[in-house]
């Protein structure tokens, strides 16, 4: 069975025998997985660069823009 959508949701056809990576399926996976991955990446990245950003701010030095951004977005940093 492919991952192409079927017209019914028959309970009898419940088994998934194989998976074909259609564009629709990949887009669907993205919608499911990317938000969780993004949240983990943002908090993880903010944890790694927070000290550098705060040290730069207190010392009046420059730091990469993306580092400022992730620390600004993350609520626990």
């Amino acid at each position: 069975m492919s991952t192409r959508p079927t017209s019914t949701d028959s309970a009898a056809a419940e088994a998934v025998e194989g998976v074909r990576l259609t564009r629709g399926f990949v887009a669907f996976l993205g919608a499911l997985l990317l938000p969780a991955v993004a949240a983990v990446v943002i908090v993880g990245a903010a944890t790694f660069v927070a000290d550098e950003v705060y040290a730069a701010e207190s010392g009046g030095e420059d730091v990469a823009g993306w580092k400022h951004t992730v620390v600004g977005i993350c609520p626990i940093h």
Partner: protein
Amino acid sequence: MTALLRRFGAALAFRDFRYLWMANAFGQAASWALIVTRGWFIYREAGSPFLVGIATFAAMGPMLVIPPIVGVLADRYDRRTILTVAFAVELAQSSALLLLAVTGVIEVWMVIAMALVSGVARATSVPTSQATAASLVPPDRLLNALSLTASTQHGSRLFGPALVTPLLVYSDASAAFLVAVALYAFALYRIRLIGPQRMAQPAVRESFLQNFVAGLAYVYERPVLRLMILILICHCAFTMAFESLLPAFSADRLNAADEGFGALMMGVGAGALVASLLVSGLQTERARGTALIWTGIASGLGQVMLGLTTALPLAVGAAVLMGGAQAAFMTMGQAVTQSIATDAYRGRVASINSFSLGGMMATMNLANGAIAEHIGTQPILLVHGAIFVVIVLLTLIPATGRRVYGRSPAAVAGTAA
């Protein structure tokens, strides 16, 4: 009274579900009691909101990572055993905290480490519990069962902290940890009373990854299930990621910084508790579909109303409407997904719900907080609320959408378990 109980508590007539419901109620209360106690202890010892945030993230973060693994396990092995292990771990970590506190050797890093252990156990028990509930009651009682479970989640946010707050004020953290131990012990005892859960289709011959991808493909191949999950993701993105906005909204629009935020959160919680109990009384698929449409619209409009208010009492009223509509919509949406899924896939469907919805809420909360610093909170509340109303109306147009909302004769066949 008996008629009311029979209607609103119909699923409680099933013994195993009753045990599961009680275990969830006590386990969730213990979990919220621990969140409050950990925050109180860490702030008192270290005086650091950052460390409190780390502990909270350690407890909540596993909900983004663990469910995909748990979903596969819950479809392979006895779900009661998985729940037993999860609650036993919760009992062990809370007992360890109690022992450390009583002996006076407790330190902040230990509390954060135990928060992580607790988070992993909770990320295991929540989707497993949802999948188990669906197999303990007949399909026509599923919405009632999930509504009762949802009401314990909302009620525990009030009940758990209410149990330990006086202890923290008049005693210390060890008394609060003792309460959590007692609650988890009772929850574990109740889980052990549930009968063994026979697996409909254990797929142990396939690899773990194959099982996980098969669950994703299973959802993708079912148009009603797929659309329902996508609508729930949109709901989380546009109406449920508001928590990072409320402190600034209270201060800027309501001129009530601290008391405004607390009042709005209580309004959301009270609305959610009442609505999840009311939804438990819906008995037909068509009634559930109608309620799904109206609560979806109310969820978006409630947020728009909140964005337009400048007076605290009106804002609290909008928060009650918003919280009630959101909780009802999520509960009914999850009932739709679980009623479509067959038992062999329920663990994975519940886990897909957990990580996709939790991930979207976490990401949108992060993004909303950052965007609000530039454009303020009001535009976000107004635009996002309006977008979700439009999404609900648009999804009523295609035949698949009408089936999601129980508007098509094929809906019954499409959602049969």
